[in-house]
Every structure is written in structure tokens, then in C-alpha cells.
């Protein structure tokens, strides 16, 4: 594809021949270079170390973590909330922006959707790791059993299980549905065993008008289903905290605050990953700086919502007049977790406004750095909310300053390695950008050509 389109030109209206678009995108589906394999090996090493640490925790018990009364939720639950949040950008870009007919989404949607699927998988591991006795995790499933035990469906923790399972299933199906025409395109280029595998995965797709018709209806249906789902999932996650009476948690602001934060971190992760990946996968002619700039504009919007939440939260605490809540808020800003609090405020609600400037938005290094820092800020936001609130509850004699143990840190970093490993492997075996969506519809191609 040629250089950036003229300002104001919708991205799909470029007069690029279909074959060129096709070749540009599908060249990334190839056997990786040695450096790429080396990176995968490093990530696999990180995953292996985390697996060993998890084994150690299972054999020894939860005493190997830094968790102790009253801090029952620490790094694991922080990471759970963080990774669920990362998964929100994919659905925003693939579903909400699809329904709004935002054309620039095409360039980043596939990578964001892939990110969503693996981020939610990564998130799903943490409650199991946190469980301690992971082998009894099936207790949460509703099934007739001799002990007559059934899940308590009035509990937000059970809502969470249902919501995360639904979100993972719908995100994975949505992602796979979008992939089918592209897998057929890869099949048609492949030979030997690869052709057989891609043939199996593309389930007989031939681009017939009947197939396209049902495919498009299904895609719209999924987008319509996923849009309220994305709002509900992080609202449900926020209720894990908001329905509790712990000072710092019991706030009606939490659902919108969490949803906005999730999208904020997810979009930042899109920038953090796509900026290096477009070079590694040689997709610089497909994922243009202009597309990343559009993501940055969305981050400014979510940054405003974060700023609003950060201002309203202390205001409501002050206005509410509850001494315990006030004390919790003051300790957040001045207590043992204060450095994390101020990092969170700076990275999530101050730094994004640098993206108001076109020079910053169009500078990929700056975008990468801002994306990375927002992710750091968002992890600390969850840490401050979860750990900071639990540490200083109603009874000062029980106050406890939590610090994660090396086992918790190893598992948290290993989970990040898992996420990156799965993402990097997947984007080598499936097209990282939708081939079918990147080709303008015939009448638009004609308009553009004329």
C-alpha cells in the first residue's frame, strides 16, 4: 500500500489493488526469524519459571505469598483486574467501532481482538492461582452433587465467573469468525501440510455470496452482543469490590470508573504492542501512523474520564462525611502506598493529555512510551484500590503493609510472558490485519480510483 492517505480520506477508500493489499498482509504469515524465535524462547523461559513457582506455592501453601490478614487480595487479584481490563480494547475496537462504522479500526482490530482473547485467558488464570487449593476449582460450577453444594448466585464473585466465561467465549468466537475468510486466503497460498491445516481451520470457506451474507449478519450480531457485554464484564469486576463494605471500595462510582479504566489500559496496550509489531511483522504499509494516532485520540477521551473519576472519588468521600472513608482516602495519598497512588494519577490522568499535541501523537516513540506508562499506571491503580484499601480498614490495630513475595512477582511476570508468547505465536500463524476488511468494497474502490 502507498503512503498515508490524504487527510480526511477514509482509510478503506484507498485505490490500492486487491492483490497488493493481500500480499502486504499475508507476507507476515511465515516462519519466524531466529531473533523472533529467540524472543519466544525467552518468554517460554519466563512461563516455565512461573509454572515452577506456582508448583512451589501449591506444594508449600499460600504462606509463600505476601498475603496476610487483613490483606487477603494482593498481586494476583490486582493482575486479574488488570488483564481483564486489557481485554476490553479489542472488543471496543472490533465491536463498538464496527457498529459506529469507524473505518480506521480495520488496521488495528485483528491485533486488538487477538490481544483480548489472550488477555482474558491470562486474567482467568489468576483467580485459580489465588485459590490456593486449585484442584477444587470445580466447586464453583453449578452441577448436582452428593454434597448438595450449589454456587451462591447472589454473590458478585459468582457473577465474575459467569461474566468472564461469557466474555472469553464470545471474544474467542468473534475473533475466529472474523478470521475465517482470512484463513481461507492463507489456505489458498499454502502447500502440503500447512494447506491441510489451514483448510481445516477455514472450514470450507469459498467466498460464496451465501457465505458472505450469513457471515456479515453473524458479525453484526456478535458486535451487538459484545457491546453491552464489554460494559457488563468490568462492571461485574468492579462489584467484587463495590458491594463490599471495605473503606475505599464501597462506591457507586466504581462500575463506570472500572469500565473506562479498562478501555484506557486496553488502548494503551494496543499502542505498546502494535508499534513494535508493525515493524517486526513488516506491516508498516498496512498499519499506518495515522491509525495509531486515532487510537491515541481515544486515549485522550478515556484519560478525561479517568481524571473525572480521580477527582470525583475524593470529593464524594469528603462530601459523604464518613471519617473512616476520609482516613482511607488520606492514607491512599500520603500513606505507605502513596508513591503508587501518585504514579497512577500521573500516568493515567495527566500524561495522556500530552496526546493533545499533534507532534506527540504522530511521534511513534512518544506514543509507545505513553502507552507503556499508562499500563504501568493502570496496574498500580488496581494495586492501590485493592491492597491500599484492605491494608487500612476499620481497625488500626490490624493494619498491615503488604508487599508481594518473589513467588507472586514471578507468577505475575510469568503471566505477562504467557500473554506475549501466545500473542506473538498467533500473529505469525494468522493474518495480523483482516485481509477481507482491508480491501475496499468494489464501489468504494471505483470511487477512489476515479
Amino acid at each position, binding site marked *: 500500500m502507498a503512503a498515508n492517505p490524504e487527510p480526511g480520506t477514509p482509510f478503506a477508500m484507498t485505490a490500492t489493488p486487491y492483490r497488493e493489499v493481500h500480499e502486504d498482509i499475508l507476507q507476515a504469515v511465515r516462519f519466524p526469524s531466529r531473533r523472533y524465535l529467540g524472543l519466544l524462547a525467552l518468554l517460554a523461559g519466563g512461563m516455565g519459571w512461573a509454572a515452577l513457582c506456582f508448583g512451589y506455592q501449591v506444594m508449600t501453601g499460600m504462606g509463600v505469598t505476601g498475603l496476610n490478614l487483613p490483606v487477603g487480595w494482593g498481586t494476583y487479584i490486582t493482575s486479574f483486574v488488570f488483564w481483564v481490563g486489557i481485554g476490553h480494547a479489542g472488543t471496543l475496537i472490533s465491536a463498538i467501532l464496527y457498529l459506529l462504522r469507524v473505518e480506521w479500526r480495520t488496521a488495528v482490530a485483528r491485533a486488538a481482538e487477538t490481544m483480548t482473547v489472550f488477555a482474558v485467558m491470562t486474567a482467568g488464570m489468576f483467580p485459580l492461582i489465588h485459590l490456593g487449593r486449585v484442584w477444587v476449582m470445580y466447586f464453583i460450577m453449578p452441577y448436582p452433587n452428593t454434597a448438595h453444594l450449589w454456587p451462591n*448466585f447472589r454473590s458478585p464473585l459468582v457473577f465474575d465467573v*459467569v461474566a468472564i466465561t*461469557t466474555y472469553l467465549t464470545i471474544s474467542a468466537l468473534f475473533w475466529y469468525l472474523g478470521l475465517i475468510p482470512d484463513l481461507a486466503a492463507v489456505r489458498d497460498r499454502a502447500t502440503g501440510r500447512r494447506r491441510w491445516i489451514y483448510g*481445516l481451520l477455514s472450514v*470450507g470457506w469459498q*467466498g*460464496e455470496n451465501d457465505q458472505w451474507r450469513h457471515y456479515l449478519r453473524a458479525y453484526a*450480531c456478535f458486535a451487538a452482543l*459484545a457491546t453491552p*457485554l464489554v460494559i457488563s464484564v468490568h462492571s461485574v469486576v468492579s462489584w467484587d469490590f463495590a458491594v463490599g463494605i471495605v473503606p475505599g471500595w464501597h462506591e457507586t462510582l466504581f462500575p463506570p470508573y472500572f469500565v473506562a479504566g479498562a478501555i484506557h489500559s486496553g488502548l494503551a496496550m494496543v499502542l505498546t504492542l502494535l508499534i513494535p509489531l508493525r515493524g517486526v511483522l513488516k506491516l508498516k504499509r498496512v498499519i499506518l501512523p495515522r491509525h495509531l494516532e486515532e487510537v491515541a485520540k481515544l486515549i485522550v477521551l478515556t484519560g478525561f474520564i479517568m481524571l473525572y473519576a480521580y477527582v470525583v472519588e475524593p470529593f464524594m468521600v469528603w462530601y459523604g462525611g464518613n471519617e473512616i472513608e476520609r482516613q482511607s482516602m488520606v492514607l491512599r495519598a500520603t500513606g505507605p502506598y502513596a508513591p503508587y497512588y501518585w504514579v497512577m494519577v500521573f500516568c493515567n490522568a495527566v500524561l495522556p493529555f500530552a496526546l493533545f499535541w499533534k507532534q506527540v501523537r504522530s511521534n511513534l516513540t512518544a506514543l509507545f512510551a505513553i502507552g507503556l506508562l499508562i499500563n504501568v499506571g493502570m496496574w498500580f491503580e488496581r494495586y492501590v484500590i485493592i491492597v491500599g484499601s484492605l491494608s487500612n480498614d476499620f481497625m488500626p490495630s490490624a493494619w498491615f503493609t503488604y508487599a508481594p513475595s518473589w513467588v507472586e512477582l514471578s507468577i505475575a511476570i510469568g503471566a505477562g510472558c504467557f500473554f506475549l508468547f501466545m500473542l506473538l505465536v498467533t500473529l505469525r500463524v494468522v493474518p495480523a490485519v483482516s485481509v477481507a476488511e482491508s480491501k475496499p468494497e468494489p464501489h468504494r474502490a471505483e470511487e477512489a480510483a476515479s
Partner: protein
Amino acid sequence: MSDVRVTASFPAFEPFLAALHSLRKAGVERFAVYSPVPLHEYEDLLPRRGSPLRWYALAAGVLGCVGGFALCLIASRFYGVVVGGKPLDSWIPYCVVAFELTVLIAGVVTMATVFLHSRLYPRPLSSAYDPGFSVDQFGISVPCEGEQRQTVAGLLREAGAETVKESAG
């Protein structure tokens, strides 16, 4: 049952569009079209419009919603312990589970329906299919009987088809 399929491939969209108009004009109703992109704007020219998919999704969503409430009520009946002072039939919390199951069942059924209606399952590709159809070529495949195949082949060539081939129907 047709004897043969006449399949034409077009390297560009204009002759393909002209062929579609010619077929419609000649009263040919049954044919398949292959394209690398969806053809939203030209659905009027294509055979069989509409898709029952959204009705399946709606029915599955309703089923999921009812099933969600039922699951919560059944679970609370089997394990009737009042927790946190909430009654066993707590309709508001159960709405959350019902909503999630609405989306889950509707999504799974939508996917199953698109597979079923689009005949998406591992199978040999049609003899009419050309790998170029996933890149930049457009194709029309018409099931013909007897003499009709010559007429159809003529129409497709006249419109500008690059290749016209016949295969078993």
C-alpha cells in the same frame, strides 16, 4: 438436478457486474457468486437475499435469559442458605447471571447457525472454486441443463470473463 456448472472468472469488478446484469436480464435465477470481499451494494443482483440468523440469535437469547434465571432459582432452592440477608429469590442479582447467559447462548447459537447455513465445515472445495477468488478475482458459477450451458457461457464471455470452464454439476 443440473448436468454441469458453468463457471466464469473475472479479473475486474466491472465485467463481473456486467455479467450479473446479463444473467438477470436473461432470467437466470440460480447461480453462485464468489468474491474476495462482501458485496453489500449489489445484494439486489444476487440470488436469495436475507438471513434467518438474527431470529435464531433472538430465540437463543430469550432461552439463555430464561435459563439464567432458572439456574439461579434452582441453585438457591437446592442450597437454601440465606447469605448476607439476601432472600433466596433475589431477582436483581439474578438479572446479572441471566444477562450473561443471554449473551453467551445467543453468541454460541449465532456461531452454530452461521456454520450450518453457510455450510462451513471441513469439506473439499467446490470444483467451481478458484484460489484467485480469495485474492482479487470475482466468479460466477451457474448450474445448467442441456443447451442452457452454451447460452450461459456465451453471456459470461460476452460480459468479459477471463476464463469460462465447465465442471460436473
